[in-house]
């Protein structure tokens, strides 16, 4: 029997039922799986590079780091449908700022420094739009849960709270995070509104080392992608993990993050 060891970061208690559910789903499949949880993405990437796990459920930043470390040889096996077309919003107080340009001379709250959606990508895209964060815009950083690459959402909540209480004029948050807060009733009516949307970029993926046997990984991915939203047992897991279907890798979406990592000198700290 072949079995893959998958790594995931325990950013929330729900990570346990998610991966136990997926492992259960794989029971009896041609390629089965087990999983190991890490407390941060740096440890997970190290484990992948050292061959202690076969596949890592990586954030975009953890993928870029793996890509750097393997000279681009690592392989991406699959993504969630929701990992494509990820975007960052700038959220301000209702009726104040109308566009990103209005942030000039104002304060922007950012989430964790290692969160692509709440720090790295907004800084990059604002730069592209001609606004130099730190120079044209004052930055107020909330570095909560560093090591979890923004997964906990804590730093985005902190950034929004800063806008609500006037410490900042806008906050950078993932569009999906904003939607979760809106649908969860956490945004008080008529207080905050998004004013800018970033270009699309990609979020998480399942990353493997180039040494992983092709046939094994294909067998595993085929079964993974057969998870079906219409099946209540699968839906429970898909819902918790925030997707409706697993899709083929679409790597174009990581290009901007590679640029951002380069431009912000992040790789030097790895």
């Amino acid at each position, binding site marked *: 029997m072949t079995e893959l060891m998958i790594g995931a970061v325990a950013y929330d208690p729900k990570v346990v039922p998610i991966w136990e559910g997926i492992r259960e789903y794989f029971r009896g499949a041609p390629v089965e799986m087990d999983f190991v949880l890490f407390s941060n993405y740096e440890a997970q990437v190290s484990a992948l590079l050292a061959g202690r796990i076969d596949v890592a459920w990586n954030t975009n930043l953890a993928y870029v780091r793996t890509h750097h470390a393997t000279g681009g040889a690592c392989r991406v096996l699959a993504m969630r449908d*929701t990992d494509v077309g990820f*975007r960052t919003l700038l959220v301000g107080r*209702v009726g104040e700022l*109308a566009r990103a340009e209005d942030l000039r001379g104002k304060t922007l709250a950012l989430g964790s420094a290692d969160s692509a959606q709440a720090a790295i990508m907004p800084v990059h895209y604002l730069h592209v739009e001609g606004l130099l964060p730190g120079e044209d815009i004052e930055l107020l950083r909330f570095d909560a849960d560093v090591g979890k690459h923004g997964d906990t959402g804590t730093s985005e909540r902190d950034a929004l709270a800063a806008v609500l209480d006037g410490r900042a004029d806008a906050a950078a948050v993932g*569009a*999906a995070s*904003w*939607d979760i807060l809106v649908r969860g009733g956490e945004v008080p009516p008529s207080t905050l*509104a998004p004013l*800018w949307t970033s270009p699309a970029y990609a979020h998480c993926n399942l990353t493997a080392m180039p040494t992983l046997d092709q046939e094994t990984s294909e067998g595993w991915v085929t079964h993974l992608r057969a998870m079906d939203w219409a099946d209540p047992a699968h839906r429970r897991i898909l819902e918790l993990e925030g997707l409706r279907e697993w899709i083929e890798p679409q790597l174009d979406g990581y290009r901007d993050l590679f640029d951002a990592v380069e431009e912000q000198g992040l790789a030097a700290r790895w």
Partner: protein
Amino acid sequence: MVTASAGPPWSEDDEPAGRYDGDTLGLADGLMFALDVCLSEIEPGQILELTSANPAMVHELPAWCGGTGNELVASGSDGEGRRTLFRIRRGNRAALMFADQPDWGLVAPDRHDGFGTTEWLIGRAGEIPAHADPSTGFSPRGAVVETGAPPFPYTETERDHVWAQSVASLYDQAVGSQWNASTDIAWDSLPAVSVHLERAVCQIMTHLAENEYAALYVPAKFIPRIHPHFTEVVLFLSTQVVDEARHIEAFTKRALAGGGGLRYSTALTQASLQSLLQQEDFSQASFLLSVLGEGAFLDYLSFVERYAPDPVTADIARRARVDEARHVAFGVEHARHFLASDPDRAETLRQSVVRRASFLADASAGSPHIEEALVVLGAGGIGPGSLGEGVRAVRDLHRTMHRRRLGRLEQLGFGAEVAEEISALHTPNFM
């Protein structure tokens, strides 16, 4: 981000299935609920057109559509540039998945005299399943349950194992016949009676109360085992539980009211009642408790009412008997329904009586102190002139109980010989 262009990028002939004007509302201001409602009114694959004058909509609507399993297919200006039109295609992978549609537009018939429980069999709500699905959980019969809901551990999921033809009207009668043991009884007019009579009354009240605990606990034990789609049965049994609670209250208060107090409870009575509580099959438990036990109680309570030394005791016995008659009616109706679909089931009911009797093998006669209290009550005291009449009255009571038991059993289709056997084996404790 979906960019607004001048004029909508779709043909004017391309009519959406639904429209909503959100004006300046943001999603968090309530618009998301309106969108949910409007999308639920169209079919998956159809288009809802949202008009919005909220500048944030272009930023927050795409993620909302993705997050709710719908698709933002296009957007465009209304032509004047003040409003944006969004076209949302309802997805077929919604967060909540239902295999069915709820009813709509079915109105209950004639409601001039109220809305009886016999009249609520309307549409899906009226479909009493032969085999109930445990994964409909606590949903009321007729509701549409999301697929994938967890199964509940009900043991009574077969209609024939719990149903009774007239259960809905028995429930309505029960609801209309509730009384208050604190205030409906003329406690202030309880007269003093002789010591011997008061002692007999207190002993009988103690015995009645302990039996009523069994009559409360047994249906209460089965309620969580019965599938809620046998709603009328669950509701009726709930009234039975409340009835028995009231009887326990009234009998206990009567024992305490006259200065006597609660008296003895025997091991035999406890063993007999425990053997009821140990029943694990609803039909058998109902047969033992309601057809045989509460059936005997009707005669027991008639006796107490007739020979009560005071009007308070008589009133309590009469009120309790009226309630008990409903429980017996349900028990008989259920046994009839249970046997109708398979006459061989009569044997399982007979065996439940035989098993219970063997459990109580050392109890060939009733408790002597209950017999004594009944004789004293029937005689109006212990005077030598009347005791003989008391003894005769109690013998008559036993004969009446036996005769009526036979009548109920024969009514259910038991042959004379089996009915005779069942009645003879029934516990001497009455219940």
